[in-house]
């Protein structure tokens, strides 16, 4: 760590001397300009946070912290609680990642490491096409194809095989948390795949050649490449997670839209983004609107926290593998 810092210092010292001698003016300008751009992102984030909080201040004052663990959402009686929506958002996104991450990493590894030239382009094109489909189409596909398949075949099979687990109990409607998670998985798959593939392809070939020359198998070589690309892969997964948390249309069409907390993946659930989209137009009184905006604020915070946790998780895992490698 200290040697790294030293090297950075040396480098910036060199840069400074260099810029002093020649393009001093334009360099300073350029640095300031890019710093402004970077800062604008921060300002935008803080500004959004403040606007959300200001627009939700009545609801914040009225419900306090109780909003976070309230379980009732009753616009008629002016009772608003966010817990079922937070639960639905986190569980559906987690489910989506559990399905999508292994799949898309597999596809990306195949494309960058093992696929014959012609294949690579075809599959990559198909994956990119998946990313371009509007979410309402995914939703319709969910209602008319996925949900009947789940109801008639997959959920009954899950119930009869793993029915002893609370995850797979209750009547199989085909609509619910499982359908929502699967739709989300399909939607985030192209993003994670495309970014991971680019990251893996950016790994210098010398890495692969070095591993192979030491007598490593294809699998061992791939592991070396993965270790080299871990930071980029983390970014890919987090991008996918961002889309899963914020997705509205497709999820609301298949998740059942019922603000209840249930362990079973067969039961209907509801996400924050969906309830905002569904109820904002017809929110007929001020407190109702404010409660929905407060949900937006919570979505914002949930995204921040989940991102931080995901980074922490990946960081701790990669650090361990680095130590193992060193040994």
């Amino acid at each position, binding site marked *: 760590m200290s040697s790294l810092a030293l090297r950075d210092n040396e480098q910036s010292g060199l840069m400074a001397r260099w810029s002093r001698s020649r393009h001093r003016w334009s360099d300073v300008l350029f640095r300031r300009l890019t710093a402004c751009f970077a800062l604008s992102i921060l300002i935008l984030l803080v500004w959004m946070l403040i606007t959300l909080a200001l627009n939700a201040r009545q609801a914040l004052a009225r419900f306090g912290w109780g909003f976070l663990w309230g379980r009732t959402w009753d616009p008629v009686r002016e009772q608003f609680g966010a817990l079922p929506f937070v639960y639905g958002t986190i569980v559906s996104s987690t489910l989506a990642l559990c399905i999508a991450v292994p799949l898309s990493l597999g596809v990306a590894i195949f494309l960058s490491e093992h696929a014959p030239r012609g294949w690579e382009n075809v599959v990559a094109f198909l994956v990119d096409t998946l990313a371009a489909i509007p979410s309402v189409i995914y939703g319709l596909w969910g*209602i008319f194809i996925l949900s009947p398949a789940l109801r008639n075949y997959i959920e009954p099979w899950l119930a009869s095989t793993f029915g002893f687990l609370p995850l797979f109990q209750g009547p199989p409607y085909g609509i619910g948390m499982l359908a929502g998670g699967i739709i989300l998985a399909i939607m985030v798959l192209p993003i994670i795949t495309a970014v991971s593939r680019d990251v893996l392809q950016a790994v210098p070939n010398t890495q692969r050649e070095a591993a192979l020359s030491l007598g490593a198998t294809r699998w061992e070589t791939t592991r070396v490449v993965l270790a080299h690309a871990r930071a980029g892969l983390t970014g890919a997964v987090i991008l996918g997670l961002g889309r899963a948390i914020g997705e509205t249309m497709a999820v609301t069409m298949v998740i059942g839209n019922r603000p209840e907390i249930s362990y079973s993946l067969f039961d209907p659930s509801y996400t924050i983004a969906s309830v905002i989209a569904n109820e904002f137009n017809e929110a007929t009184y001020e407190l109702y609107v404010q409660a929905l905006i407060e949900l937006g604020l919570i979505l914002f915070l949930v995204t921040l926290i989940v991102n931080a946790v995901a980074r922490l998780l990946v960081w701790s895992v990669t650090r361990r593998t680095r130590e193992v490698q060193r040994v």
Partner: protein
Amino acid sequence: MLLLCLLILSTGGCGGTKDGAEEVSLQGAGATFPYPLYSKWISEYHKVNARVRLDYQSIGSGGGIKQLTERTVDFGASDVPMTDEQLRTAAKEVLHIPSALGAVAVIYNLPGVASGLKITSDLLADIFLGKITKWNHPGISAHNPGVSMPNADILVVHRTDGSGTTAVFVDYLNKVSSEWVGRVGRGTSVNWPAGIGGKGNEGVAGQVKQTAGSIGYVELAYAEQNQIAYAEIRNRSGIFLKPSVANITAAAASMSAQVPDDLRVSITDAEGPAVYPISALTYILVFREQVDEQKGKAVGDFLWWAIHDGQKFTGPLQYAPLPDDLVKKTETRLRLLSFNNQPLLHR
């Protein structure tokens, strides 16, 4: 030569449109329920009066009221009359102009059971309260002799997005079930005691069509278009009726004595033998005192046309025309439309 001909033709064409008075464009927004009818009206009215350009965005009743109050549109539209509180927020007097009638159909999917299952108001409330959970419940069988009801779970499907359709449906349940009043209440979004939510009429219709044993509610047009079985509902006279153009108009006609001067009225659960009980009025909302004379006049003319000539387009789209005495009352309200406190319509 050809070029010259074209030139003459095109200038001739231009002159034709320039002869007319200045073009007026009107913005409206609100309820999704009457949207098919309003878009038909917009294209038909253009044939009658090419000078007026109308634009309607179906963003929902609540949105329509909000946009009218903020004066971002020239007219709003809503399936539910504005509440007293909303009228206070609007500050200036708002006219409720009934534009057409519609009905909410109770749809279901029961393999082996044809369209026209007979359901009473009590059964309907109990099903949507989650108290009746099986299709072979004795209460349902009692009213449907000869129909073998399956021993299947009932899956309730309701609208998840705030909607006028929901408001009409729960308004009916509020009138027929005291338990509903206590547990759920009225509104465009409510805390449903049972079932799953579909997004939009198409979401509910799609869900019911897909799932055996499900029951839901949609606008009549959606039930017809999707060819989904829908129920006969028992009215206050004890007669089971399917929604139809005649039954819906009858509901409004039977309420005409009770219609207040401002025309804010609910016509669910109306009295009379030929009445379909889950019927509704849909409104166009305008400020009584207009801020622009040209636009105010154009809105007035359009609404006058809508409640008279426009009514013949209702039937084919599964809406029902306003009964005659309601048209008379609406005329009186329309004449109140003013600019600088001078009436805009001279009819």
